[in-house]
């Protein structure tokens, strides 16, 4: 499996072919629709990460020290952002998740969604994934 760093590089490459903003968002939304799928049973109150404006459901599993994630959102854009997070983090060793520095959001110009954290809960999601990874290290959780 590619490392977190490699995956981030790949995402940046993919977006670099799309200079116009509406194209970027169209692609983001498409990613979200293809790559997020959350079984009904995981749409629980416990799995909700609350943004001020949108809802995200985040399901986390820890298997042999690796973090596995599924997510969905009521907003298509947040769903796309969540899909990118899953692409980067899901299936990675917990230690790598904890150490990871998410640089790609800035490079593809979507970091405003991280900074308007209260609005969409993206930052809360990253924090939650990292906290979960901390429990998952070495196979626990």
């Amino acid at each position, binding site marked *: 499996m590619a490392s977190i760093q490699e995956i981030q590089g790949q995402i940046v490459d993919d977006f670099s072919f799309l200079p116009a*903003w*509406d194209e970027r*968002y*169209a692609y983001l*939304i498409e990613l979200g629709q293809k790559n997020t799928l959350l079984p009904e049973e995981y749409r629980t109150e416990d799995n909700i990460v609350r943004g*001020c*404006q*949108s809802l995200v459901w985040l399901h986390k599993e820890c298997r042999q020290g690796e973090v596995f994630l599924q997510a969905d959102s*009521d*907003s*298509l*854009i*947040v769903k796309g952002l969540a899909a990118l997070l899953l692409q980067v983090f899901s299936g990675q060793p917990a230690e790598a998740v904890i150490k990871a520095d998410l640089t790609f959001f800035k490079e593809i110009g979507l970091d405003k969604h991280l900074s308007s954290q209260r*609005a*969409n809960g993206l930052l809360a999601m990253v924090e939650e994934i990292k906290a979960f990874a901390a429990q998952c290290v070495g196979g626990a959780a």
Partner: protein
Amino acid sequence: MAIDIDKIRADFPILSTLVNGKPLVYLDNAATTQKPRPVIEAITDYYSSYNSNIHRGTHHLSNLATEAHEAARKTIQRYINAEHAHEVIFTRGTTEAINLVAFSFGEAFVNPGDDVIVTTMDHHSNFVPWQMMCERRGANFRVVPFDENGDLRLDVYQNLLGEKTRIVAFNHVSNSLGTINPAKKVIQMAHDAGAAVLVDAAQSVQHIEHDVRALDADFYAFSGHKIYGPTGIGVLYGKEAWLDAIPPYQGGGEMIDQVSIERTTYNKPPFKFEAGTPNIVGPIGLAAAIDYLNGLDFADIMASEDSVLKYGRSRLLEIDGLTIYGNAQHRTSILAFNIDGVHHYDLGTLLDTHGVAVRTGHHCTQPIMTALQIDGTVRASLALYNTRDDIDALVAAIRKVLKMLGR
């Protein structure tokens, strides 16, 4: 005579900037308005030629700054038609003005078992401070609902009013629905019950009537930044008798008369409520904004905004699946809506890629969203410089977004 909007637009430098490579279409005026050149110049001029602390200096610059600061108070007094300049208190904004009254009025006049009334359509700034005060004072927090159109339920209000009602707080205009509340009537009813009234004028003072004496408001609060002035400055108007009757909100310099270890006596209003070095330039910038408005005909501004609002409603309603929230009898400046199957956050974000600035979410009015059973709206809000072209740009951008979303 109709106002010349092109000329007005030229006075607001920011309106000619590009956003995401597109000409800015600024429709987030309920959040904050843009500033005309005279406001920007007044601020620059203050800092470049007479910045100084006020009310205490013996030197030349301090005198100039004090004069400008106090002249601003008079400009604001005239704009809201207050009887005295000392009834105009400078605050950080509407929020601080309301907190001041909730605290000081609460300390003096609200006791366990008393009632305080607000409305479901109030901004969190005119909701939470009263809730906090009720908790502190052991008073009952009563809330007047609105009907399916967004009009206040005056019948419920009438029933809530009684001899235990100490104060009523309501917004003249709702920032989420655009409802213009029948302020005179709401105030009259409260007075008949022996209660005081605070009017949250954050969304009305720049758009509609703003005469505190005609309204007979006891307290009246607004923010400079929503009336083309700077951020960090707001106004609390209070009738002289009330300002004399309530205790200070914060202690410190400026607000005192004599201080000793045994006892401190307080300065008179407005200084009694202005502890510490105030925002000196804020009122100067705000007065420049008001002077700018005074140079136009307010009736023309109202007519122009109203015509753009009506045009906006009809253009938006051409869009399939679009619902407008707020159908009150009298409305101003706000177009709040959702489109079936489209999340407001997505629509707002994608409109931004077309240079259209709107706000999305609950707009600090969660009780409204709860009542409407939605979790947010897209809100386009108007100011005096908006035109039908802005509405056309909004509608065209919405259509592009819907197409992109495959709808």
